[in-house]
């Protein structure tokens, strides 16, 4: 080895932590000034927010050591100088936030349903799960189990849906809406692309109508107009009516997403399937849809995030979801004025779910990209 080929190390200032700081934070004068300004703002803001949310906050006891049972006992209401957030309201009302007014003796059923939901979702979310096939069977029958478990019947005492609330309602609406909208969305997407003009026109009209009006009008439709459309004697449950509206809404959006996936399938796939003598349904079920759905999973997750957030709208028609319980708690004189704590908590719960879903969709997109590249080689 001669001297010319000797490997020289890069200058210290361009690598490692110093290099990173130089390139990303102090690249030039304006950049450095911006960095310092942002750091100053964070320095002002972060200690204050940490102090409010954690260090000066009451979790169960106030600063006198008493267990908090109403807002007057919160440290910040006893002594404005001394207290931060009063999380005791969440602690005291935790049951309502998670289960609504579900009877306490029966609450194990909800817990069991939550656990089963996690198991049902597992094979859908994680393709490499061992024994995935058997888990999937469970996923298919889970809705039936969950219905009897939560609602009653088959030996369980009935729990009317007006006792449901909080996270339970949010999850029921979100999961059922997504699960029902998926097959309807597929049918609508196929219908819109159908060669039969009447069917294609009807599906297009339906999809564009639903996408053109706000969800809240559909909820009003479900609440106010649906009972008028049905014959006497059929009294629909409030939650079911809302569910109909949410499902209609979501299926139109789902249809558009799946249509995008269908459009991405090269025509050769259709031709190949037809030349094998496959019928329309066999072609779609065995060849086209599996590919189309695979590539539209990330946008499906994204519309599902949208739906999950939109389930909060049901509070306007009087269903008590997580946000509804929060508002109800605020209306209680015992907890008047704790709006920041309650809204913070509700936002956090929603954030955990939706952020998790969006991360998952990103992960899928990445996986899909590499998958397609491998296929093309």
């Amino acid at each position, binding site marked *: 080895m001669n001297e010319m080929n000797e490997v020289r190390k890069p200058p210290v200032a361009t690598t490692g932590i110093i290099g990173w700081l130089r*390139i*990303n*934070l102090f*690249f030039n004068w304006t*950049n450095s000034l*911006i*960095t310092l300004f*942002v*750091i100053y703002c964070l320095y002002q803001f972060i200690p204050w927010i940490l102090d409010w949310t954690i260090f000066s906050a009451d979790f169960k006891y106030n600063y006198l050591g008493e267990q908090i049972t109403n807002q007057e006992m919160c440290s910040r209401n006893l002594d404005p100088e001394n207290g931060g957030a009063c999380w005791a309201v969440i602690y005291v009302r935790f049951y309502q936030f998670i289960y609504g007014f579900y009877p306490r003796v029966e609450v194990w059923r909800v817990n069991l349903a939550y656990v089963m939901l996690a198991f049902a979702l597992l094979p859908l979310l994680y393709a490499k799960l061992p024994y995935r096939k058997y888990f999937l069977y469970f996923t298919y029958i889970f809705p039936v189990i969950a219905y009897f478990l939560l609602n009653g019947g088959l030996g369980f005492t009935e729990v009317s849906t007006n006792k449901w609330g909080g996270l339970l309602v949010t999850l029921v609406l979100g999961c059922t809406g997504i699960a029902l909208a998926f097959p309807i969305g597929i049918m609508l997407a196929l219908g819109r692309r159908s*060669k*039969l*003009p*009447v*069917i294609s026109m*009807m599906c297009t009209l339906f999809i564009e*109508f639903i*996408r*053109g*009006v*706000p*969800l*809240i*009008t559909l909820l*009003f*439709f479900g609440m*106010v*107009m649906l*009972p*008028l*459309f*049905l*014959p*006497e004697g059929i009294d629909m449950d409030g939650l079911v009516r809302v569910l109909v509206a949410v499902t209609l809404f979501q299926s139109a959006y789902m249809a558009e997403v799946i249509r995008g996936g269908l459009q991405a399938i090269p025509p050769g796939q259709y031709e190949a399937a037809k030349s094998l003598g496959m019928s329309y349904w066999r072609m779609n079920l065995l060849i086209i849809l599996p590919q189309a759905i695979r590539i539209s999973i990330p946008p499906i997750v994204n519309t599902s*995030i949208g739906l999950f*957030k*939109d389930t*909060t*709208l049901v*509070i*306007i028609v009087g269903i008590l979801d997580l*946000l509804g319980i929060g*508002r109800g708690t605020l209306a209680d004189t015992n907890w008047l004025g704790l*709006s*920041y704590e309650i*809204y913070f908590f*509700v*936002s956090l719960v*929603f*954030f955990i779910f*939706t*952020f998790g879903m*969006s991360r998952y969709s990103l992960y899928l997109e990445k996986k899909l990209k590499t998958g397609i590249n491998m296929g093309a080689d």
Partner: protein
Amino acid sequence: MRSNLGFFSDEKFRSIFFQTLVVGLFALGLFFVISTTSYNLEKRNIATGWSFLQNPAGFDISFSPFLEFKSTDTHLKVYFVGVLNTLLVSITGCIAATILGFILGIVRLSSNWLLSRLVYIYVEFSRNVPLLLQIILWYSILIQLPRVKQSLQVLDVFYISNRGLYSPRPIFESGFSYVLIAIVLALISSFLINRWAKKRQDKTGQQFPVFSSSIGLIFIVPLILFFILGSPLSFEHPELKGFNFKGGLVIRPEFIAMFLALSIYTAAFISEIVRAGIMSVSKGQREASAAIGLKQTWIMRLIIIPQALRVIVPPLTSQYLNLTKNSSLGIAVGYADLVHGFGGISLNQTGQAIECMAIVMATYLSISLTISFFMNIYNRSIQFKEK
């Protein structure tokens, strides 16, 4: 050989058969719904028809900046007030969300790591928390502001309290219409100058200071006219009388909460769209334009943004549509928009559920269609033109 139903495997026959079947089932369903509905309506003594629109509303609307509304006015007027309020919050929201979204999208791509992370955190929080919750949160912050008597004073003319923002109301005197006409004329002529300058530059390569001349036309000419006419504009200041302000222009907290929540929420989505759009412009474009010696600001304005817009505009359209539809959430804080005023209070008072909902849905549909129509025209104008 497959079946004895030879005619059934004929594609033409099958297509007609299925379509007739679907139409028949649909007609049957429709007939069923209509007959049960008319039966139900009859039983509840609800008369169908549009005559209720002429009946007096009998309630007040707290926020109606464009039309004077009294409780003796008709339901039809409630509808118009609602449409105007919906449009007001949608248009102002779209404008604010676009500006904020573009700024944030560009900042997100800044080379400053800290700044870009900060925007990232904002985007994630704002996108992942339900909009309704954000609207309610903003409203609860606004109504916890000091009472009217202790209202915060900004620049001596604005008063902020839990009743809203009070600002001076401009009073236009007789000559002001000339100033407005001058502004419109200036806008048109600067548009024409822009076109002429572009044509001339394409032909001869000579440049014309379009920007400064337009600024001069739009701002300075009307301003001179304004002073020549003897400043035909005065302000009515809000004054504290008793428990409330009298006079001035009041912007209610419901509107502010809706405006803030809608624009901040949508801006998060728009910033991601803008970021994706700018990133879609290939690196070579930036390098090439730097190589021919364009300034940094010019690279952005002449090379990057026009190409990014092609990617940005279609999803931006759907964000505008979303914002407009989301403005219907005003009902949660009592903002008297279409859904709250006409679809809510009028519906409950008259019981004309089907008519009210039909009108509300039709209105949203037409607003949506109008937005997509104009955005499609704009989209076509900025797409690549095949030569």
